[in-house]
């Protein structure tokens, strides 16, 4: 694949690479070599790269954030990473959960369950974040929705596992474990942003949110 050459500056290194098949490593290496006008370079190269590269980059970002959110070590790197919020991750996990639960063999009302879970996740995240803001927390709206969406991932795993096992108490044990993992991650993030006296008032809705989702994962 070939790209058009745009500016006069820093052409030499780009031409040599862009004429080949675009690979993620080479594009990233090029972005590191040219400190000046790097943002322009990124814009032009992201517009002209292939779909596979874009998707891989987005998936890699989702993976990095997922690791930050779910391995609950409160380092400052985690906090910085989480400030670059994106809603792709929550959307992917929400859709996966809704699809898993609506397609499991145990119920008649597949579309209804899909709709209920989808609305529950997005409206629930919205309301929980609004609640934290109203209680005086200094939490940015989309950042909080992003973290709540990423923390749905363990419940996703729980729902997938319950598809394969039919023993009720094993399912219950797994789902409780996933619920505790989700809640611990989400609470670890939100705890830092709420004033001291109102902490439980802001964290209880988070617990209720994940409890509701885990209940769905167990029952359906």
């Amino acid at each position, binding site marked *: 694949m070939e790209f058009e050459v745009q500016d006069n500056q820093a052409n030499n290194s780009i031409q040599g690479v862009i004429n080949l098949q675009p690979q993620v490593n080479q594009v990233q290496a090029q972005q590191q070599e040219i400190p000046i006008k790097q943002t322009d370079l990124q814009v032009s190269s992201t517009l002209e790269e292939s779909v596979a590269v874009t998707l891989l980059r987005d998936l890699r970002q989702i993976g990095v954030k997922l690791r930050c959110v779910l391995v609950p070590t409160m380092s400052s790197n985690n906090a910085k990473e989480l400030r670059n919020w994106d809603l792709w991750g929550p959307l992917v996990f929400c859709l996966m959960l809704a699809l898993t639960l609506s397609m499991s063999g*145990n119920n008649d009302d597949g579309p209804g369950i899909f709709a209920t879970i989808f609305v529950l996740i997005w409206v629930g995240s919205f309301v929980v974040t609004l*609640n934290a803001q109203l209680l005086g927390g200094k939490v940015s709206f989309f950042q909080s929705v992003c973290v709540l969406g990423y923390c749905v991932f363990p419940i996703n795993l729980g729902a997938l596992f319950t598809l394969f096992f039919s023993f009720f108490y094993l399912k219950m044990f797994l789902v409780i474990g996933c619920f505790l993992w989700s809640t611990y991650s989400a609470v670890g993030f939100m705890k830092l942003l709420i004033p001291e006296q109102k902490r439980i008032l802001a964290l209880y809705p988070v617990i209720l949110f994940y409890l509701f989702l885990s209940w769905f994962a167990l029952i359906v």
Partner: protein
Amino acid sequence: MEIGVQKQTQEEKQVQPEQFNKLDDSGDKKSTGYCGFLTVEYYTPYFNVTETDVIQRIQATFLPFRPDFLNITKDNPDLWGPIWINATLIFLITAIANLRQIDQEKENQQFDVGYVPQATALLYIIAFGTPAILAIVMKILGVDLSFFQTICLYGYSMSTLLPITILCYFQNELFLWLIIVYGVGNSILFLIFNLKEELDKLQIQKKYIIIGIVVIMQLSLYLFYKLVFFSYVSEGKVEAKVASSDSKIPGN
């Protein structure tokens, strides 16, 4: 042309400081315009409670003979209670109804989750619509209770439904009716005792109008709750009865 433009800008500059002074004098509410209630800042003063406050208010709802609640919340009505008590109720209804369905069917049970949207709509409309209507009526009749205080009062009165919902797990019909009667009594007493101070300032007829509205709304809430909630289980019972009667008929 240029001179004319400069003169106008000077005149505008002279006018502008006066306008800024007017904005400062007119107070906070007017400067946000008519859409102030759509901002987050409008509702922040109503979330000014701590955990102990909330627990204290919920405890006050279970002791209706002491009208502590209005004294506690007069200066500080909160919206946290009404919203999240109802959310907890929706979760409890879902959980308890599903647990009831476990007992009747065998393996590969199908749990009905279709009533989650219905329960949500029902509870939130009642929790916020009823106090809205009551507040409008009270404003017309001259009671001095603000809109948010009424919402706060009603929202916390729904907390009597919390233990009732948990106890609805037991399937004895007499027991269920007993709990419902207790719930109706508790919440009506709670509401009336707390409104008593305000209502005593009115004439007797107006007082009874408001008390009548409160009683009717609570009765209809609990009846609706019982019949809608109970019907999800009675469907299963009706099917079992129909099946057993069908099996008996050919024998006869």
